[in-house]
C-alpha cells in the first residue's frame, strides 16, 4: 500500500511548483514535546494540514523555539533527528514521508535511455533519487527503510550499521555474515555483534547467516546512513547446514592464501575417539596439516617441524596443546569458538614461528543469561558455565574438564597397575566486558595439567599456564587500536623413585611475556593498513635436578636462559580494482639472547664437541650476548577471474628464534626448548605458493587447489644419542641443516544439503639435509633424506548425512602413506649380546595408515519446557579394526634382537557421549 501512495505522489507532485507556496508565520516554543503535539499546534496556528501516519512519529520528542518563522524553517528543525521528509503540495497541505524524498522533477533515469550518457559525461554527478523496484528476492515480512533521504546528497554509498543480537539472550552475536548477494557486498559482525556495511542507495535483499542462528532475509531500501539492529533466533537443529554458509565465498575472495578455518560447530557431528570432541584433530583432516602418527602430539604444517607452529589461545602461546601424548587435545571444545590456521602466507602481525599460526579463539560468555554446557564421555567429563556479570556488558565463562581414568585404574584388580596413573585436567576462565560501545576488554586465564607414569619408577607431570588480556578500542571510523598482553608458561617434572636411594626430581620450565600494540587503519575503500609493535621476553630454566628423600644424587642446575624478541610490522590490503587485490606485509624482527649467562666458544675447523671449547664467555645481567634480526616479507595477491573463481599467489618469509629440542622421532612432553644464542642460529624459511579457488552452485561446492614450495635453513637436528636435557654443552649435540618441502593440496567441500563435508588430498614431500665436513656431524652422508613426518599421500574424507532433523550419520576416512622409520642394515655381536646397526636415516616406511570412523548423532527433542537440550553421540573409531603400526623398533632382549611393531588403537573403539546444554 505504501508503495502505491509513493508512486501516486511522485507522479502527481511533480506538476506542482515549489515557489508558489504561500508563506505563513509560525511562533512556537516547546520543550521535549512529542512531534505529534507540535504538529497539532502548528495546524492550530496556521492553515497548514499535515498528512502522515501517526506511528511514524510516535517515538519522537523535540524541543524548539521559533518566532515568526516560516514552515520551511520550522519543519527541518523538527524532523532533524527523524527519518521524516516533508513536501508541501500546495498552500495548505504538507505531506510527510518516512525515509524517502518526494521529488518534483522526473528522475533522469526514467526520462529515457539516451540521457545516461550525458550523466557520465558531466563532471557534476546528478543525484538519482532512490526508487524501490520489485523485490530482488524472497524477503521475510516487510521492507525496512533505512536512513533519511536528503535532497542533493552526493553520497551514493551509505553506511548501514547495527548490532545483531540473540533474541533470547540479547547477547551480541559475533561472526554473523551480513551480506547482499547480488552486489557481492558483505561483512561479518565483530565480537560484540556489531557490523558495518557500505551499500549503495536503493533496494537490496539483505541476508545474514551464521552457524548458530536461523537465516534472515529482508528487503531493505537504503536512503542514507542508518542503523539496522537485527535480532536472530538461535538455531540448534540446523547446525551442519548453516555453518558452511558462514564464509560462503571466503576462500575465493580473501587475499591471503593458505588459511584453514574450523568452527567448533563444524566438528559437533564428527566421529570421536574416546568421546572427545577435538578441534585440533579436525585440523588434521585439512590438507597440508598432519602429524607423525596417531598417538603423536604436534602438527607438521607443510613440511614444517612440530615446533614451528605458533599456537595461540586467545592471543597467548600455548606450548603443549595436548593431553596424554596427543591422544586428546588440551583445548576444551566447549569453550572454543574457532581456530584459524595460517599455513601459507602468515599475516605480518604474527611471527616467531616458521610454518604456521593456529589462532584459537575462545567463546565470549553470555552477558544476559546464565548458560551451561557439558558432556559425559567414557574418559572425561566436561562442564562449561557462562555467567553474566553486568547485564548486556560483561560475562564470565568458566570451563573445566578432567579425566576419571585414575579411578578406573584403581578400580581394576590388576596388581601391576597399582602405581600407574594417567590423568589430566584443564580449566579456562574468560571474562569479556563491553566497556563502551567502542571499547571491549577480554581476558583469559588457562591452566592444564597432565600426570602419568608408565613405568614404576618415573612419574611425569607437565602443565601449561597462560593469561591474556585483549583491549580493543575504536578510536574513530577509520582507526582501531588493539592492545594485547599475555604471559604463557610451560613446565614439566620427572620424579624418579628407585630402590637405590637415587630418587630425584628433574624439571624444566619456560615462561614468556608479550606486549603487542596494533592499529587498524581503514584508509579508504581500497587501502586498509595494519601496523604495530610487539615485544616478548623469554625466561627459561633449561634443567634442574634435585635429590628427593635421602638420595645420593647431587643437586644440579643449568643456567637460566633469557631472551628478548621484538618486532615492528606493517601491512596494507590494497584493492587495486574489484578483481585484483594485494596484501603486502613487512615484519622486522630481532632477537637478543640476554645475560646473565655464559656462552661456549668452539674452535673453528674441528667438530663441535665439548673438548673443543676454546673460551667460555661470561655476560652480565641484561647484557646482549648475541643479537639476530631480519626483515620478513609477506606478500600475497589475489585475482578474480569471475566472482566464483580466483587465483592467489603468495610469498612468505619467516624467522624463528626459539627451538624445541627432541631426540625422539616424534614429539614428547619432555621435549625442552632452547633460545638462539651464540652457537644456535635462528631458523629461517621461505615459502612460495600458488592456488586456484572455485565455488560452484551458489557456494554449495568449494574447490581449491594449492601448491607450495618451502625452503628452510638452520633446521635443528641432533647427533645420534644426543643428551638434550641437563646438558651443559647442549650446542655440541645440535646439528643445523636445511630442509626442502613441496606439495599440492586439493580440497573439495560441500557446504549445504543433507550430505555435507569435505574431501582433502595432499601430495607432499619434506626432506632434511644435515651436512658437515666432519663425519660425526653428518647424517645420511650429508644427502637429503625424508623427514620423520614425510607422508606423501594423505587423503581425508569427512562426511555428514542428515537422516532426519534429529538423526545424522557421520564418517571419517583417513588414508596416509606410512611414515619413514630408521631400520637396521645388519646386526653384530658384542660382549655376548646382539645389537643392530643403523646407517641411513628414514629409508624404510611402516605400512600405510588407514582408518574409518562412523558416528551417529542424536539431537534431543526440542520441547521448550525441557531442562536441558541434549545431544548424544555414538561413535566407533577405527571400525575396520585396522592395526595401524605407529612405529617399528628393534630391541636387544636377553642378548637377542627382536623386532617389534607398536600401534595405538588396533581395535574398533566404540564410545557414547552425552552432551547437554542449558
Amino acid at each position: 500500500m505504501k508503495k502505491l501512495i509513493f508512486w501516486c505522489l511522485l507522479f502527481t507532485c511533480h506538476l506542482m511548483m515549489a515557489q508558489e507556496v504561500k508563506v505563513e508565520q509560525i511562533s512556537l516554543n516547546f520543550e521535549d514535546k512529542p512531534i505529534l503535539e507540535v504538529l497539532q499546534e502548528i495546524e492550530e496556528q496556521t492553515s497548514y494540514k499535515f498528512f502522515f501516519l501517526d506511528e511514524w512519529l510516535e517515538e519522537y520528542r523535540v524541543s524548539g523555539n521559533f518566532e515568526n518563522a516560516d514552515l520551511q524553517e520550522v519543519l527541518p528543525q523538527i524532523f532533524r533527528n527523524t527519518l521524516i521528509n516533508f513536501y508541501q503540495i500546495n498552500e495548505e497541505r504538507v505531506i510527510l514521508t518516512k525515509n524517502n524524498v518526494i521529488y518534483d522533477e522526473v528522475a533522469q533515469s526514467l526520462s529515457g535511455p539516451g540521457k545516461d550518457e550525458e550523466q557520465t559525461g558531466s563532471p557534476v554527478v546528478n543525484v538519482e533519487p532512490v526508487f524501490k523496484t520489485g523485490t530482488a528476492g524472497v524477503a521475510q515480512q516487510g521492507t525496512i527503510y533505512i536512513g533519511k533521504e536528503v535532497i542533493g546528497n552526493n553520497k551514493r554509498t551509505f553506511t548501514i550499521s547495527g548490532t545483531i543480537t540473540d533474541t533470547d539472550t540479547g547477547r551480541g552475536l559475533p561472526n554473523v555474515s551480513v551480506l547482499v548477494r547480488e552486489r557481492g557486498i558483505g561483512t561479518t559482525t565483530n565480537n560484540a555483534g556489531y557490523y558495518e556495511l557500505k551499500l549503495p542507495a536503493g533496494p537490496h535483499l539483505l541476508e545474514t547467516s551464521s552457524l548458530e542462528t536461523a537465516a534472515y532475509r529482508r528487503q531493505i531500501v537504503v536512503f542514507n546512513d542508518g542503523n539496522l539492529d537485527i535480532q536472530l533466533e538461535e538455531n540448534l537443529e540446523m547446525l551442519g547446514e548453516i555453518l558452511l554458509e558462514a564464509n560462503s565465498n571466503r576462500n575465493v575472495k580473501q587475499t591471503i592464501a593458505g588459511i584453514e578455518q574450523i568452527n567448533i560447530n563444524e566438528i559437533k557431528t564428527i566421529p570421536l575417539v574416546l568421546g572427545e570432541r577435538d578441534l585440533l584433530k579436525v585440523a588434521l583432516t585439512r590438507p597440508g596439516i598432519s602429524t607423525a602418527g596417531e598417538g603423536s602430539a604436534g602438527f607438521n604444517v607443510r613440511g614444517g617441524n612440530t615446533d614451528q607452529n605458533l599456537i595461540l589461545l586467545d592471543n597467548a602461546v600455548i606450548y603443549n596443546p595436548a593431553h596424554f601424548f596427543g591422544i586428546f587435545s588440551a583445548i576444551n571444545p566447549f569453550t572454543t569458538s574457532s581456530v584459524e590456521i595460517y599455513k601459507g602466507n602468515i599475516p605480518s602481525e604474527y611471527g616467531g614461528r616458521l610454518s604456521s599460526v593456529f589462532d584459537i579463539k575462545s567463546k565470549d560468555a553470555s552477558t544476559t543469561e546464565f548458560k551451561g554446557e557439558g558432556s559425559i564421555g567414557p574418559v572425561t567429563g566436561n562442564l562449561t558455565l557462562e555467567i553474566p556479570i553486568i547485564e548486556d556488558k560483561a560475562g564470565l565463562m568458566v570451563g573445566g574438564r578432567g579425566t576419571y581414568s585414575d579411578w578406573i585404574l584403581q578400580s581394576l584388580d590388576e596388581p601391576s597397575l597399582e602405581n600407574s596413573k594417567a590423568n589430566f585436567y584443564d580449566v579456562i576462565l574468560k571474562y569479556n566486558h563491553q566497556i563502551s560501545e567502542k571499547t571491549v576488554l577480554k581476558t583469559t586465564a588457562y591452566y592444564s595439567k597432565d600426570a602419568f607414569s608408565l613405568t614404576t619408577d618415573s612419574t611425569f607431570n607437565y602443565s601449561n599456564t597462560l593469561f591474556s588480556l585483549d583491549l580493543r578500542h575504536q578510536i574513530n571510523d577509520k582507526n582501531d587500536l588493539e592492545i594485547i598482553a599475555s604471559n604463557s608458561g610451560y613446565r614439566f617434572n620427572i620424579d624418579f623413585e628407585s630402590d637405590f636411594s637415587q630418587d630425584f626430581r628433574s624439571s624444566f620450565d619456560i615462561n614468556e611475556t608479550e606486549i603487542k600494540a596494533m592499529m587498524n587503519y581503514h584508509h579508504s575503500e581500497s587501502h586498509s593498513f595494519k601496523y604495530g609493535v610487539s615485544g616478548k621476553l623469554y625466561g627459561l630454566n633449561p634443567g634442574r635436578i634435585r635429590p628427593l628423600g635421602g638420595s645420593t644424587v647431587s643437586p644440579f642446575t643449568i643456567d637460566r636462559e633469557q631472551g628478548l624478541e621484538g618486532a615492528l610490522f606493517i601491512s596494507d590490503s590494497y584493492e587495486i580494482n574489484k578483481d585484483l587485490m594485494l596484501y603486502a606485509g613487512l615484519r622486522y624482527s630481532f632477537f637478543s639472547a640476554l645475560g646473565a649467562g655464559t656462552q661456549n666458544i668452539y674452535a673453528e675447523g674441528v667438530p663441535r664437541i665439548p673438548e673443543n671449547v676454546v673460551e667460555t664467555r661470561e655476560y652480565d645481567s641484561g647484557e646482549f650476548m648475541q643479537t639476530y634480526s631480519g626483515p620478513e616479507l609477506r606478500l600475497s595477491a589475489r585475482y578474480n577471474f569471475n566472482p566464483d573463481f580466483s587465483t592467489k599467489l603468495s610469498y612468505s618469509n619467516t624467522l624463528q628464534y626459539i627451538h624445541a629440542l627432541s631426540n625422539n622421532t616424534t614429539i614428547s612432553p619432555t621435549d625442552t626448548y632452547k633460545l638462539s644464542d651464540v652457537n644456535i642460529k635462528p631458523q629461517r624459511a621461505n615459502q612460495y605458493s600458488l592456488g586456484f579457488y572455485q565455488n560452484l552452485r551458489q557456494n554449495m561446492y568449494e574447490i581449491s587447489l594449492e601448491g607450495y614450495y618451502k625452503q628452510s635453513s638452520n633446521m635443528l637436528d641432533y647427533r645420534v644419542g644426543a643428551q638434550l636435557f641437563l646438558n651443559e654443552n647442549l650446542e655440541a649435540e645440535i646439528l643445523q641443516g636445511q630442509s626442502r618441502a613441496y606439495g599440492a593440496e586439493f580440497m573439495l567441500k560441500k557446504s549445504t544439503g543433507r550430505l555435507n563435508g569435505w574431501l582433502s588430498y595432499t601430495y607432499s614431500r619434506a626432506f632434511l639435509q644435515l651436512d658437515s665436513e666432519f663425519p660425526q656431524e653428518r647424517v645420511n652422508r650429508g644427502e637429503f633424506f625424508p623427514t620423520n613426518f614425510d607422508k606423501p599421500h594423505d587423503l581425508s574424507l569427512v562426511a555428514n548425512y542428515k537422516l532426519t532433523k534429529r538423526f545424522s550419520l557421520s564418517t571419517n576416512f583417513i588414508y596416509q602413506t606410512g611414515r619413514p622409520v630408521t631400520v637396521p642394515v645388519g646386526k653384530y655381536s658384542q660382549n655376548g649380546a646382539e645389537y643392530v646397526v643403523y646407517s641411513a636415516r628414514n629409508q624404510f616406511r611402516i605400512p600405510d595408515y588407514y582408518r574409518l570412523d562412523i558416528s551417529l548423532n542424536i539431537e534431543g527433542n526440542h520441547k521448550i519446557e525441557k531442562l536441558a537440550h541434549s545431544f548424544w553421540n555414538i561413535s566407533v573409531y577405527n571400525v575396520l579394526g585396522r592395526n595401524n603400526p605407529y612405529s617399528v623398533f628393534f630391541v636387544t632382549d636377553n642378548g637377542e634382537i627382536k623386532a617389534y611393531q607398536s600401534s595405538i588403537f588396533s581395535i574398533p573403539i566404540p564410545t557414547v557421549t552425552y552432551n547437554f546444554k542449558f
Partner: protein
Amino acid sequence: MKFIRIIYCVVLCFLLNSCVEEIEFELDNFENYLVVEAGITNELKHQQVRLTRTYDLDETIENNVEQNARVQIVTGNGEVFEFRESQDGIYESEIEFQAVPGVSYQLIIVTTTGEEYISSPEELLPASTIEDVEVERRVLDGEDGLVISVNTSGAATDSDYYRFEYEETYQIVSRYRYGSDLEYDAARDTIPYEVFKDYEEHICYNTSLSNELILGSTTDLSDNNLQNKLVHFIPVRDPKISFRYSILVKQYSLSQAHYNYLRTLQEMSLSNNLFSQTQPGFLNGNIESSDGQQEAIGLFTVSSVSTKRRFFDFDDYHTTADTRTYFATDCRITTVDLFNPVALEALISQVVAGEVKLVGIIPSGVPGIVNYEVTTPSCVDCRYWGDLEPPEFWED
C-alpha cells in the same frame, strides 16, 4: 557394559604397552661393516681383540668372523704389540702385556682385503675399586628377588664412567638321585635291566656371562663413589640360586666419550616408550679406515679393571617358605608295567634312545618281577645343565 570394558582395556593398553607385538622383519639393504671388540686392560695377560662382520638378521655370528687380519697395538712410546689369531676371529697378543697410565695406545687392523683401520689413541684411565658386592633380597619393579649391587671407593675424579660385567657360577643339583640306571640289550634280556652307575651325575657347575650393557657413572652423584649400583637381579625362584652361587663382578673404567657411545647403544636397543622413540642412527666409535671413508663398529678401550667375587648359599637369602626350583621342570615319574606289551615296547625304545632314566623300583605284585619308575634324564643327570668339575676358584 562390554564396550566400557573395551575402553578400559584401551586405557590399560597405554600403560601396559600391550599394543606392542613382535614382528618378522627382513632387511632389504644389508650393509657389511667390520665389528671390533677391543678392550685392553691394566691386567698383565694376553690381551684379546675380536673381529667380526655385521650379518643379516636371520644369520648367526659363526659365519661372520673376520679371519687372517693383521692386528697390532702401537704405543706412544713406539712399542708394537703384535696379535695372532688364536681362534676364528679372536686375536691374542703374542706376549703378555698390560696397559700403563700415561701411555697412549692405538689399534691398527689390516684386513685380508687390504683395508686398514686405525683407532684414535687412547690412554688408561684411573679408576676406583669395587669395595664390596652386596646381595640383598627385595622387591624390585614388583618382582621378588636378589639384588646384586656394588659399592666403590677411591674415586679418581668427580665424574667417572664405568662398564660392568659379571660372571655367575652356580651349583646344579639334580632333582632325583638313584644309584643305578637301565640298559637294554636284546641279546641279554627281553626287558631293560638295571645297572649300577659307576659315574657321578648329581652335582654340576655352570658359568654364564652377562650379556647386557651395565653402565655406571658418578656424574650426578654427590659422592664420587658408586653406592648400591645395581649390577644384576635374580628372581627369587631362579634355579641358579637354588644351591650355592657365586658371582664375579668386573668393573672397567671408561672415558666419557666411550660411556656416551655405550649409553646410546643401550638406549637404542632398549624397549621404547610406546609414544616416543629415540631417534636411532649410526654410532661413530673411535675406529675408522685410514682413508677416513669407512667406519668400523665398536670401540677400542683401555681400561683399569677391578674385580670382586662373592659366594652365597640358598639358605642365606631364602626362608623355609621358599621352595627350591630346578632347571629341569618336567620331572613326572612314570611307572612302567612290564606285563603291558605296549608299555614295554615304549620303554625299550626310550632306553635305547636315552630318553628316560631310572629313579626307582617297586614290586609288581608278581614275585621276582619289579616295575620300573622312570623320568626325563635331565631330572637325574646334571650334565644336561653344566659340568661335573667345579671351577678352580670354587669354595664350598
